């Protein structure tokens, strides 16, 4: 009798420990997700500045600039709608458009010499990296959280305690970023 009681108590303690661990992970995941959100907002705010300051020099790249503007507008409206899939898709497109703009800007020595543009470029690179790294942190934490729920004894009661799997932040299946980039060497 006492043995059974002790065993029961030990199991209860262990369940509590697992529960607390999961709760702490869950909050970390939520926090990491918020960080991505902050960085995305920052990117939306920076892009108009960049486009305005390079517009003069890059007259011949109107198409590229317009694509960036369009992608930004789409991303802003997507984040307002709050639809997760849509946000992922539109932000992916914006990342791609920006990457193209950066690549093209390499061809303009005047642009690269311009201090203001350089500072803006640095800011945007910084934001892009922040997005990348916060996404990476989010995915690492979410994976950790998911594994903790799925391993053997935990999976018996994790669902019953109200934990659900976190979605990883990945590019949508039909994203253009998955395609290998085409390099055109003809000038």
């Amino acid at each position, binding site marked *: 009798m006492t043995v059974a009681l002790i065993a029961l108590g030990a199991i209860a303690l262990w369940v509590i420990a697992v529960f607390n661990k999961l709760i702490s992970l869950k909050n970390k995941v939520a926090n990491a997700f918020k960080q991505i959100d902050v960085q995305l907002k920052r990117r939306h705010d920076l892009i108009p500045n960049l486009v305005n300051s390079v517009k003069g020099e890059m007259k011949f790249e109107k198409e590229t600039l317009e694509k960036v503007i369009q992608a930004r507008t789409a991303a802003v409206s997507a984040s307002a709608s709050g639809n997760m899939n849509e946000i992922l898709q539109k932000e992916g497109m914006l990342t791609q458009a920006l990457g193209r703009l950066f690549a093209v800007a390499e061809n303009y020595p005047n642009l690269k010499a311009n*201090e203001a543009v350089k500072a803006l470029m640095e800011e945007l690179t*910084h934001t892009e990296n922040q997005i990348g790294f916060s996404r*990476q942190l989010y995915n690492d934490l979410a994976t950790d959280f998911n594994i903790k729920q799925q391993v053997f004894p935990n999976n018996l009661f994790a669902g019953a305690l109200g934990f659900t799997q976190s979605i990883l932040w990945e590019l949508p299946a039909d994203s253009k970023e998955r395609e290998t980039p085409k390099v055109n060497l003809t000038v």
Partner: protein
Amino acid sequence: MNIYEQQANNKRLSVFIMGVFVAFFLFIGLGFDYFYINFTPVPEPEYSMNDYGYYEVEMKRQAIPYGTLLTLILSFGMVINSMINGPRMVLRSTMARRAVSTDIKEKQFLNVVAEMSTAAGIPMPQAYLMPDIDLNAFATGFSPQDSHVAITEGLLKELNREELQAVIGHEMSHIKNYDIRLMTITAALMGAVGLVSDFAGRAMRFRGSSGSSSGRSSGSGGRRGGLGPLMLVIFVVWILFVILAPLISRLLAMAISRKREYLADASSAEITRNPLALASALEKIRAAVSPTYAVNNGIAHMCITDPRGSLIEEKMGLAADVFATHPPMEKRILALKMMAYQNSR
């Protein structure tokens, strides 16, 4: 070894080092009292016949153990000081200044530090620049909440953005797994050990020259005439300890440092997902052979590479295993390239 084990390990080692430090000070202080003030921790009782013809136990009045008390207070003071002021002491010794956001290159440095702290999931450390043309970097602090990263101006100038990211990533992992606490405390206390053993050595020389007749053989004291063979052995050990203490503490700091560099390299690659950037940064750092003058010997073990610019880092074998603060660059770069190769397959 996962990150939590590393953290626990480092915290434990930090406490251990502090304990050893206090014990070392007590040993020096006790030795001082024993040999110079005739204080014994466990006094021998003396039996003397009293007027009634009985033997009576009579405890000799002990001299006050000034040395022990002083070193006890001093050592605790220094431990607390190293915990509170250690990071600032280290930074001040390198003449580091805060990076400013008005300069475009320094702004980039600040941005990179912010990015890497995001990637590592820790609060952003304060960023400092050391006025030196050599390539070097270190991190200090007591915990991730109170941490500082410093790089030389040469490093900022020579490395491109990705390489800078890799180097800062390396420092971030030192911060995240509490290496900084251990290293900073070791650095702060190491300086104190040198100071005290210097002092004890000088006191010894002074005593030796000012006539041994009055000093040791106070006849009726606890020692009762001269030093016994056991006493002599203890005395010799004590002197050896005083002389060797700085060397021992240096060796300790080195041993602590070397393993950690591999681990930090690996976690930098994990954070940036780009081992080759760190490899090429290390190549550049290796190519800059001039010593880092801004960094003095006391904090050599905290840096990403040996600031003395000595060639011992390049050697492999026993001498390098004992005396180098860092593993050979060759091996570190090779390990990173292996990582990149395995990733690409």
